[in-house]
């Protein structure tokens, strides 16, 4: 029986996913995000693609993979909107990078940690989108209601926890 030697905590806790999961879960999240607000308009407050981005980034603990996953999911999300393609792509690239970097440092399997990182990343996502629209695109009329964004972060955090637990079952240790 072959044995593996681990040289760091990062390598010890790095996970990979089956290709089907790695492709279909983000696509399913984008599809659900497009479908759910039609019968239930209030569900437009959810951001399932961001939850998936954070999950894959903190699980893989690879900043490059986190950046590319975030960029791909964000660009796909942008393509379905009327916004210029790249707004969500840039925001989720940054979040994927930071989430993966944080995942190296702290224990992201802990429930409390998951609550905090999800809540923080949703607020960061809103801030980045505000920044891109106001500064990069010069859209002076772009406003965000920060109370609404706090509420959105809280709701998405609540939704993210069961999704994280569900997706934990698809992890494959390297």
């Amino acid at each position, binding site marked *: 029986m072959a044995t593996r030697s681990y040289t760091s905590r990062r390598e010890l806790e790095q996970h990979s996913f089956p290709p089907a999961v790695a492709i279909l879960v983000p696509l399913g999240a984008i599809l659900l995000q*497009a479908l759910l607000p039609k019968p239930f308009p209030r569900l437009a407050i959810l951001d399932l693609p961001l939850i998936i981005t954070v999950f894959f980034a903190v699980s893989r603990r690879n900043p*490059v993979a986190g950046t590319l996953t975030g960029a791909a999911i964000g660009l796909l*999300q942008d*393509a379905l909107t009327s916004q210029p393609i790249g707004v969500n792509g*840039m925001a989720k690239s940054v979040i994927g990078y930071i989430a993966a970097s944080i995942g190296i440092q702290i224990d992201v399997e802990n429930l409390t940690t998951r609550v905090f990182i999800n809540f923080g990343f949703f607020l960061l996502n809103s801030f980045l989108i505000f920044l891109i629209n106001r500064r990069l*695109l010069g859209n002076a009329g772009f406003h965000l209601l920060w109370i609404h964004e706090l509420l959105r972060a809280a709701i998405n955090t609540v939704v993210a926890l069961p999704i994280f637990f569900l997706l934990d079952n698809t992890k494959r240790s390297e």
Partner: protein
Amino acid sequence: MESFFTRFKNVLVLVAVLLAQTIGLAVQVRRPVDPTTPDGSSVTLIRYWVVSTVTPFERFFHGLGYNLRHGWSNYIDLRHTRQQNHDLQEQIARLRLEQAAFAEDAIQGHRLQALLDFQQHYVSSTVAAQVIGTSGNDLSRVLYIDKGSKDGLKPDQAVITPDGIIGKLRDVFPHTSQVLLINDQTSGAGVLLANSRLRAILRGSTTGQILINNLTPDSRIKPGEQVLTSGGDQVYPRGLPVGTIESIAPDPEHQPYTLIQLRPAANLNQLEEVLVITGTQPTLPHEAQHDLAVGATTAEAAAKQLADQQAADAAARSAAQIVADRLPSLHDPDHPEATAPNPATPGAPAVPPIRVVVKPLPTVHPDRYTPGTTPPAADLKPGAADRNNPTSTTNPPPYTTTQPSTNPRPAPEKPQPQTDSTHPQNPQP
């Protein structure tokens, strides 16, 4: 050098990805040459690929849900169908009368428009489509419908429901189209305030509200006023409902303008089926002309029926009046209200009847029997019959008739008893 890239691989990848997307954004925000295509060709291609990937699933799930709802509502849940049918029949009858009332005005309006050479655009053709998906992002209020360029749709065509406008087509793909809702932050429309006739520009917002922010304070603008499309934007035909004014407040960012918030006429959150306006024409469509003619005919028939009814009522009333004049009456002409029947209110307290002293009607043709025409006995002289009774020969007989003079021979008069004191009545045995 190799160690640099290895060491900063993660950051370099992030910077490269962000730089690429920044360049992509910079390319996109440049205005396209063709105003009918909101994006460049490469961006449209990316959108087309993604939409082509996502919409088959959206169609599948939409079809599944639609068939389930259709099967339930059309074959199982038919409990109130008869009542609904009855209500709808009554509504149709009421609407026909309303249509007849408006038809004359409409015909007159068209005549005046023709006189003034006024260019009006009527909706001549529409394509019905079903909403199959959304953008999934509440910062971008976009819908996807199941019709595209193969069905004759083009960018910038107006999308409406029977309640009002909902948006316009943004990107049109072969079998799918993207509808930009009027409450999206990039939307706009030319509108007209129905009562004050002020023209304005409507805009969406990031919070999904519909706002007008290019009007200065005006006391004529009131909450509840209806807002219509003005037709000035060359997208929405004139006169379509947009919504009603919900609130008016000073705009803190653009003084001295006001911030007018609208409540949309159509429910933008629950859209199932929409109509895309694919054509307009300067004259009314054939169906509308037919409906207008039917309305005018109905109005004429109703007017004729009303006139006949009024004539019959007048005739009946005049006959009743004649009969009432000929009959003894208890009505006091000085106090008509005292003797008028009180159709009143059953719950009102009972009012005691007012006693009326009955007086004889004034004599139209006085004769010798009329009270007051006979001189007092002190003035009479024996043997002066002719002089004492001057009305006996000069006054006409008291009998007057309203019968037509078909009978040339009047009925023989009975000898009237003399009341004159000079001609005493025969003593009774």
